[in-house]
C-alpha cells in the first residue's frame, strides 16, 4: 500500500510538472480547405497549396485582418487593400499606385484572384517572386509602396493588443515573425477565388449568352481574328491566363524591360505576365503600365496598334499592319464577350471585405 501510494504521488507530481511547463503543444488551427469551383475541378489541375502553410480558419482570418490593416505600412497609413481594393477585383483604379511617401509606382497594381492556380508560382508583372508567401514580403518593404521595416513591423505587431493572440490561434505561437505574417496574408489571398461570372454560368448551363457575346467568344477563339486563347485561356481553361510572360507588341523599344530585368536575358525584354481576363469590368486601367483606360483601347491595340520589336510574341499577327484589323462589329462583340468574364459576386463577397 505504501509503495503504491508512492507511485501515485510520483505520477501526480510528474503530471503536474508536465502540464504546468508545457507550451501549447498539439494545438492545431481549424483546417479550411479551399472551395474549388466546379469548372476548375472539371478542367484544370488542383491549386498549389504549400505543405508548410495549410489553409485554416484562423490563418485566413488573420491574413484578412492584416490585409486591411494599415499597420503594415511604415507610417500606419496604408493597407494592402488601399492599392488592391475589393471593389476593383483587388487592383487600383489609378494607373500607378501612390506609396506612403507620395511616390508613384511604375506599374499598375495587379488584380488578386485565383492566385492558388498560378502553377509556376511566379508573381508580379515580371515574375520576380516565387510563391505567394514570398510575394507578400516585397510591397510591405518596398520604399515606394508601404515602406515598412520588417523588424520594426514585427515589434509593432508583437506589442499590439490583439495580434499576438491571433497569431497564436493561427499558428500555435504568439511569437510573431515576418514569415508568419506572409503566411497569413497568403492564406487569405488564396481564398480570393473568382469563378461565378456570366460565362461560368453559361458553361454550367445556367444562363444563355447573347448573340453578340457568342460572336465575341468566336472572335476570341478564332486564330484568324482575335486568337486570344493561346495566351488567355478558353472555355477549357477557366483561369483566362496562361500565367506566362509575353511581349504583346506595346512598344518598339522598352523603357521597362519586364521579365528581362529578372532573368537578365535580352530575349525576355519587354515581356510581362499575361493578366487574367476575368473581372475586366472592374480592373481598368489595363496593361502592366495601365496605359489603356478602356477595353476599346485594348482591343484597338491588338487590332491595329501592334508595334514590332525583337522580342514580340510570334502569336502577334500582321504586326507590319498593326494587327488583325477587326471590324467595328467584331470589336464590339469581343468586348461584350470579355465583359461576360466579370464576376459581380466576387467584388461584393463579404468574406473579402474588412
Amino acid at each position: 500500500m505504501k509503495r503504491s501510494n508512492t507511485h501515485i504521488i510520483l505520477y501526480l507530481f510528474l503530471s503536474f510538472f508536465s502540464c504546468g511547463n508545457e507550451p501549447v503543444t498539439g494545438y492545431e488551427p481549424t483546417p479550411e480547405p479551399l472551395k474549388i469551383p466546379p469548372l476548375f475541378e472539371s478542367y484544370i489541375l488542383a491549386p498549389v497549396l504549400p505543405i508548410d502553410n495549410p489553409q485554416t480558419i484562423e490563418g485566413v482570418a488573420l491574413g484578412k485582418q492584416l490585409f486591411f490593416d494599415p499597420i503594415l505600412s511604415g507610417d500606419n497609413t496604408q493597407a494592402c487593400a488601399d492599392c488592391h481594393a475589393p471593389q476593383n477585383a483587388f487592383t487600383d483604379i489609378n494607373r500607378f499606385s501612390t506609396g506612403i511617401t507620395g511616390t508613384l509606382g511604375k506599374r499598375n497594381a495587379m488584380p488578386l484572384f485565383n492566385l492558388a492556380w498560378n502553377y509556376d508560382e511566379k508573381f508580379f508583372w515580371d515574375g520576380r517572386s516565387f510563391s505567394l508567401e514570398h510575394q507578400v514580403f516585397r510591397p510591405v518593404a518596398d520604399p515606394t509602396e508601404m515602406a515598412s521595416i520588417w523588424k520594426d513591423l514585427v515589434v509593432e505587431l508583437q506589442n499590439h493588443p490583439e495580434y499576438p493572440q491571433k497569431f497564436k490561434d493561427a499558428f500555435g505561437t504568439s511569437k510573431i515573425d515576418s514569415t508568419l505574417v506572409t503566411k497569413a496574408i497568403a492564406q487569405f489571398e488564396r481564398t480570393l477565388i473568382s469563378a461565378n461570372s456570366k460565362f461560368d454560368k453559361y458553361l454550367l448551363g445556367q444562363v444563355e449568352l447573347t448573340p453578340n457575346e457568342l460572336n465575341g467568344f468566336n472572335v476570341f477563339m478564332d486564330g484568324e481574328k482575335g486568337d486570344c486563347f493561346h495566351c488567355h485561356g478558353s472555355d477549357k481553361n477557366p483561369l483566362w491566363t496562361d500565367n506566362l510572360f509575353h511581349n504583346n507588341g506595346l512598344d518598339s523599344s522598352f523603357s521597362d524591360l519586364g521579365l528581362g530585368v529578372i532573368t537578365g536575358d535580352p530575349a525576355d525584354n519587354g515581356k510581362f505576365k499575361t493578366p487574367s481576363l476575368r473581372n475586366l469590368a472592374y480592373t481598368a486601367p489595363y496593361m502592366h503600365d495601365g496605359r489603356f483606360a478602356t477595353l476599346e483601347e485594348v482591343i484597338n491595340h491588338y487590332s491595329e496598334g501592334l508595334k514590332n520589336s525583337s522580342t514580340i510574341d510570334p502569336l502577334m499577327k500582321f504586326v507590319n499592319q498593326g494587327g488583325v484589323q477587326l471590324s467595328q462589329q467584331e470589336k464590339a462583340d469581343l468586348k461584350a464577350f470579355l465583359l461576360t468574364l466579370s464576376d459581380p459576386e466576387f467584388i461584393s463577397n463579404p468574406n473579402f471585405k474588412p
Partner: protein
Amino acid sequence: MNKESFNKVIVILYISMFWSCSSNSDLQAKEVQVSFNFSSSWRGVPVTNADFNDLKYTNTYGTSLSLSKLRYLISNIRFTNTNGDIIHLPGYQLIDITENKNLSLTPEQSLPTGKYTQVSFTFGFTNGDNYNKSYPDLNAASWNVPEMLGGGYHFMQMEGKFLDDTNTEISYAMHMIRAVDNNLTPMRFEDTFFTVNLGPMTISDNTTIYMDMNIAAWFDSPNTWNLNDLNNMMMPNFNAQLMLFENGQNVFHLNHITP
C-alpha cells in the same frame, strides 16, 4: 557448438545458397519500368532552350531562323514482343523544350524484360484520345484546340523568328493539330497523328530509351518549307497541317538506349 554441429550448419548454409542460386537462374522475365528521355537537335547538333532566340539555324530552303517556343505531345507508348503481343503503356507527355519541362518519362506500368521487335509511340493523340476527354494538365497549359477547329488538343507548338526574303525579321508559329477544313459543313478532317517506330530493342533493368527530335526535319522533306509563304495561322490551314504530318515522319529517331 561442437565441431559436428558446426559442420552441419555449414552444410545447411551451402545447400541454401545453392538453392537460392538455382532459383535466380530461372530466367523468368522480370517486370521492370522503362524510362524515356527526349532530346532535340538540329541536324545532329543538340538544341536546348539555351539555344533559343538566336537566328543561328538555316533550314533546307535556306532561311535563317530561331526558336522561341517548342513543345509537343506524345502518347500511347507500345512495346511489341516476339510473340507479336503489344504492351501499351497508357498516358501521354507534353514535352516542353522552352521551359525545360517533362524531358523524361517513366511510365508507372512495368513490362517484362527481354527482346521486343518494335517500340513505338504516337506523336500527338489518336482521335480516341483527342476528343471527348479532358486532360487537366493540358487544359492548364492552354493546349486546347478551339471547338471551331474541331476541339481536342494541339500536337505541337513551334515558334520563333526568321529572316524573310527581304532580310526582315518575321515571326513564325507552326502549330500542329488534326487537319481540319472548317469552311466545309460538316467540317472535313484528316488525321495528322502518326506512329514513331523506334525499332527493336532489348529491355533490361533500368533501361532508358533516348530519343531525339531533329527539328530541322520539320522544314526539310518531302516538303521544303518556305517560311516566307507559310509562317503563321497554320491551325486552320488544312494543307499546312498535312505538310507538317508528312515532314514529321522523319523527325524522330532513336538516339541510344542504356544499359
